[in-house]
């Protein structure tokens, strides 16, 4: 029965799902508020109603009704009915170069996110932090999943990127007491912001060298300890640097990390990581992980491979850190500690090692779960670890491990437009 219901959906192309989602979120913007009022809810459920349901369990039926009426039914109906035209459009798009096809899909995805997030500032914030979490998870997966080294230094790389980008933007474009008057016009800053992020990423890459070089000779537990030490060194270094105000933290970053900016950087990160890990040069990471001696014997330069993985992973962690600083508009060394490390590691191992899909799923589900379960307060930290333990028992390598993300097959039409229906 369920199989029969699902069957028509197996022939819906990605484009069709995006159309369905777009209709649902547009409907919410148009009719969400009155509907919520009608159902006796104070306001529209911000994050799929989780917090409302947890706070006032009496409202559960009404929230579910709202979700059904706003998201599930419209999206399902549009996706189902639109499958055939969607396949037609997808087939037409597929004849263009892959870059064009991908850009159209991304634009549609962005439209969905934009309309959905437009309903409240809270949604915009959660969405940006989730996208940053995707970047972090993916970059850590390059080192821990694809190369199989247990690195704990990721928050350190993130801190380097966050502070470097913050110092640049505050110092150059903001009249701050710390660095004096702005030396460049803030209007210019919008365009130079990517440069600041990249410089932050490069500084993080440089930091990555200090973990990559020991990794030539050690691996496993010992490298984990070395990388943990690196994290503490970075943290205490920043705590003791007076020119970035030490433990009091840096504030006043310009508000440049808006949703489109974060979205674009995330796309860039996913795209380049996916390119890398699917190339033969990138697969060398797997060869080093599975058997280093065999990799060496098959002409793979294992040292260069390890350095590349660390520098590349650290770079994206640094960029993510820079974006994080400009989303929060305040950072202090406490942001980049063990707690942060535990969260990123949980996302990587929950979602799945050696997999771009897995990183996205892990980052999104743990971030959203963290927000959704907020009303439970301290119990949140019992439920999420419990979930992690369950995943580790039933799928030891994570939910979606060892799966390649093939963009071409993802965007392909699922049926010939002629026979679709």
């Amino acid at each position: 029965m369920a199989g029969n219901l699902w069957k028509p959906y197996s022939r819906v192309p990605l484009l069709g799902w995006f159309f369905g989602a777009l209709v649902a979120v547009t409907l919410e913007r148009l009719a969400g508020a009155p509907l919520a009022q009608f159902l006796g809810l104070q306001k529209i459920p911000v994050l799929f109603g989780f917090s409302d349901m947890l706070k006032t369990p009496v409202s559960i039926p009404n929230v579910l009704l709202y979700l059904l009426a706003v998201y599930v039914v419209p999206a399902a109906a549009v996706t189902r009915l639109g499958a055939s035209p969607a396949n037609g459009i997808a087939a037409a798009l597929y004849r263009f170069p892959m870059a064009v096809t991908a850009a159209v899909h991304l634009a549609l995805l962005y439209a969905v996110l934009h309309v959905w997030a437009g309903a409240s500032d809270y949604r915009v914030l959660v969405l940006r932090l989730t996208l940053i979490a995707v970047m972090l998870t993916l970059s850590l997966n390059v080192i821990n999943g694809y190369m199989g080294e247990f690195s704990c230094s990721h928050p350190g790389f993130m801190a380097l990127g966050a502070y470097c980008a913050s110092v640049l933007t505050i110092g150059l474009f903001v009249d701050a007491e710390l660095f004096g008057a702005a030396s460049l016009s803030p209007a210019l800053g919008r365009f130079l912001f990517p440069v600041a992020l990249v410089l932050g990423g490069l500084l993080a890459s440089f930091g990555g060298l200090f973990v990559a070089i020991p990794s030539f000779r050690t691996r496993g537990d010992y490298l984990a300890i070395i990388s943990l030490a690196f994290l503490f060194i970075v943290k205490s270094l920043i705590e003791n640097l007076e020119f970035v105000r030490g433990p009091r933290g840096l504030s006043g970053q310009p508000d440049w990390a808006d949703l489109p900016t974060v979205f674009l950087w995330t796309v860039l990160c996913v795209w380049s990581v996916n390119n890398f890990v699917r190339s033969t040069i990138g697969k060398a990471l797997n060869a080093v992980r599975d058997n280093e001696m065999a990799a060496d014997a098959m002409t793979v330069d294992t040292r260069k491979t390890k350095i590349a993985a660390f520098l590349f992973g650290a770079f994206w962690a640094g960029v993510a850190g820079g974006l994080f600083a400009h989303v929060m508009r305040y950072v202090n060394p406490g942001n980049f500690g063990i707690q942060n490390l535990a969260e990123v590691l949980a996302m990587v191992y929950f979602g799945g090692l050696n997999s771009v899909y897995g990183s996205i799923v892990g980052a999104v589900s743990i971030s959203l779960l963290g927000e959704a379960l907020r009303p439970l307060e301290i119990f949140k930290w019992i439920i999420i670890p419990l979930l992690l333990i369950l995943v580790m028992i039933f799928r030891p390598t994570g939910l979606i491990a060892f799966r390649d993300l093939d963009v071409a097959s993802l965007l392909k039409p699922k049926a010939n437009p002629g026979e679709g229906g």
Partner: protein
Amino acid sequence: MTLPVLQVRNLSHDFGGLRAVRGYNLEIGSGQIRGLIGPNGAGKTTIFNLITGIYKPSEGEIFLGGKKIDGLPPHRIASLGVSRTFQNLLLWRHMTVLEHVKMARYSKIRYGWLGAFFGTSARHREEAGIEETALHLLDRMGIRHLADQVVLNLPYGAQRRVEIARALATEPGILLLDEPTAGMNPEELAQIMEIIRRVHGEFGMSILLIEHRMKVVMELCETVQTLDFGAVIAEGTPGEIQNNPRVIDAYLGRERAE
């Protein structure tokens, strides 16, 4: 006279106080198959590890086509043209058969890091070429139909073929095979011997073979060295080796009652 493909001069290696290889010499001409036999612990695999750069020799020199290669890192030696298989099958357990063979083209890749990160068209062209070469090799080894399988799921004989295909993909001047028939049943044994003959015949490959089964050595090798306690105790054609009393003593065991 042409240069030998591989020349080893007076090679010695110590593990702490133990001299595992002493004064080992070898010269392999183009297209020759040489055998290396000896009891367990005689130092056969150590010699392979010395030639491929996993260990640095305590004494002695190694030349590949006249170029000195001892002291170079293993991946450099491999890309210069020494390829090998391993006694206990060192495959990459999460990778497919095709990925194994493509990986061995690593040192030939020209598109660089930028190509890897940004997926340039040069990269796509080169990757397509690599894939074609790899599929061709799999074809020659008779395992093309397994290209998309993860190696862990394959039967033992097929895994051995993957290892040989992978070793050939580096375009070696010489192939070192470390007990390629270990743990095989008679059927698999016949197939792998056929493969080795084909590699020798079609690719004109020079081969150095470590082997325990006398049958294989007798059928495949032109000359054989016998190693005992790190030193060569006999060298000659398979027939001569088989009848050499010192070899029988050390390796085949004392058959005649005293």
